[in-house]
């Protein structure tokens, strides 16, 4: 589904990603862990198409297409969803309008008719219940004045609305209470099918109790320095990152 080969990316001529290789197949769940500043969010942003970062080397194919040929909105419509580590507040744009535009733009991309207002509201109601999102939140401007946890929950709500093929969740678990954590995990697990895949970026092994990953990768200084099964997460929880860093030959 997604194939990343030797990906290098810069910001303001500072290299952040220094040769990432990763293969994600349909049906898989990958977890990415790693210390602060190692480049996890950068990787997620580059995959979603953030122009702030310049790709200097490497190739990414998504469903057989060159990812870098696609605009951010095309990537989204082709099924890539990025759950933001820091969701953006957009004062004056209502959640309803935002979501309706997003859903219908994606439908248009796929050659489908736009949803009628009533169908859209029905869909919204369903998904709100699914992720137990407070009804009042969708009557407000996008993320405006939402608490940290509410913002994260809103990301999952959006994911549920858009039903992506590849979900990249950047620390969606940070700042969540235990109930919310369960809901986030549920969201990911519901999405799980032989046709979909997820990349879950997290600092906590705790999340992986709910979302059982097929692979765990450690990102350090712009490179994946170790990959393993879910047991790697336990090891990290126990020992931290130092033992891995030491093994690096610079």
């Amino acid at each position: 589904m997604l194939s990343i080969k030797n990906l290098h990316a810069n910001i303001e001529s500072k290299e952040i990603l220094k040769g990432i290789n990763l293969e994600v197949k349909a049906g898989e769940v990958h977890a990415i862990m790693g210390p602060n500043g190692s480049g996890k969010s950068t990787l997620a942003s580059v995959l979603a198409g953030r122009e702030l970062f310049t790709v200097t080397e490497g190739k990414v194919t998504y469903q057989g297409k060159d990812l870098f040929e696609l605009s951010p909105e095309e990537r989204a419509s082709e099924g890539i969803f990025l759950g933001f580590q820091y969701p953006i507040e957009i004062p004056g744009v209502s959640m309803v309008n935002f979501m309706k535009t997003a859903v219908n733009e994606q439908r248009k991309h796929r050659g489908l008719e736009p949803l009628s207002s009533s169908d859209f509201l029905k869909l919204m109601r369903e998904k709100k219940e699914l992720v137990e999102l407070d009804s009042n939140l969708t009557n407000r401007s996008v993320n405006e004045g939402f608490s940290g946890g509410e913002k994260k929950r809103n990301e999952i709500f959006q994911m549920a609305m858009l039903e992506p093929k590849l979900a990249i969740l950047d620390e969606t678990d940070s700042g969540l209470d235990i109930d919310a954590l369960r809901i986030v995990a549920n969201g990911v697990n519901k999405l799980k099918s032989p046709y979909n895949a997820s990349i879950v970026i997290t600092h906590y092994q705790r999340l992986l109790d709910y979302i059982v990953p097929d692979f765990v990768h450690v990102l350090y200084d712009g490179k994946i320095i170790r990959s393993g099964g879910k047991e790697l997460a336990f090891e990290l929880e126990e020992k931290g990152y130092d033992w891995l860093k030491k093994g690096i030959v610079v």
Partner: protein
Amino acid sequence: MSSEIIHSEIKNKLLDLYQNNHEVLKNGSPDYINKIREKAIERFRELGLPDKKNENYKYTDLKKEFDNGYKTYLSPKNIKFDMKEIFSCDVPDLNTKVILLLNGWYYDRENLLTELPGGAIIGSFQKASEIYPELVKKHFAQYADIENEGSVALNTAFVKDGIFLFVPKGVIIEKPIQIINVLMDEEEGFTQHRNLYILEENSQASIVVCDHTLSASNFLTNSVAEFYVGQNAHLDYSRIQNEHNGSKQISHLFFHQERDSNVTANTISLHGGLIRNNISVHLDGEGCENNTYGLYLTDKGQHIDNHVFIDHAKPHCISNQLFKGVLDDFATGAFNGKILVRRDAQKTQAYQANNNILLTDDADIKTRPQLEIYADDVKCSHGATVGQLDENALFYMRARGINKKEAKLLLMYAFAHEIIQKIKVPALKDRITDLVEKRLRGELSRCNFCQMHCCNS
């Protein structure tokens, strides 16, 4: 040096125009008006028109704009048009009464004055000055600044027709009154309508004024409106400026507020080649509230200059100014907001904000707050921003599948929304929402048809 000569020529041309048409101007106006007319032309002779050397006109050279050789309208021109045809649009048939000025003259020559429920009167200013001399005399030229503003003196010297509204004590006009200023001619035209709105104590009215051009020729408008808002009276004034880009307009609004009165004035500028709005508010009684809002959406070579002056003359008044603008292409603009708090005006609250979004590197806005505070117990604030669309918000929307153009529109619309939601009349709010959306999408062009009902419910 040479430009001085040209400029004084413009002044002389206008003085000549006055001299040559002295009789026409005086005919049909009562003596008390003609007396003021004489004084005004003398003042104009001294003041002339401001150019960029004048601090208040630093970004808009008025002198230049008047030097155009356009024809003036010293009497009503008989242009017949089928109202139905012009107003046929997406809104069903015309059923509410719309007040029309054509090139500055009251259009309905058969019914120059109309009585509204409760004894309110709307109609032609010229007719009113003849029929209600005491009323007009009491207020006409009392609030407009003829002393310092050359273009106001000029308008006063040439005063003929315009809108007259009188709302007597305690009368509440429920339905918004819609006024349309239509400019239409084969030739280039120069109009100077003069308007007088009198709201007596405890009265209420809401007025919607739309400025439109219905033919492609160039126009210049130099209009003045005076508003007397009596004790505890409420006025809700909305203005939609939507002339084509070959037109230029200088608009002066003078609001005089008595004790406990409340005025909200909302100016929405959509199209127009050059727009200079002078809005002047005199809070002359305790407990007044004034809200002066504006939204300007400009592109191409448009130029917009909003100039607001709020005079806190008495204690315990509140004023709020909020102006927001989006400038695209190589559009230019200026905002100047002056707040004067006089020594006696204790417990004043005066707030001002001007926020701008520039969509290109060539678009430009100058924004300048001016606070002059002579009282010590006051709350004042001001803030101005000039920025671009929020890149993070754009990316967030695009990452959800919303294309870049649509994402930009959503953000611009959100930005404008803050002003639109201040509009109190729901039907008008919907209509303006629609107009603004169309404007931002670039679908609202100069249009002889659909957009006319800017405000009909």
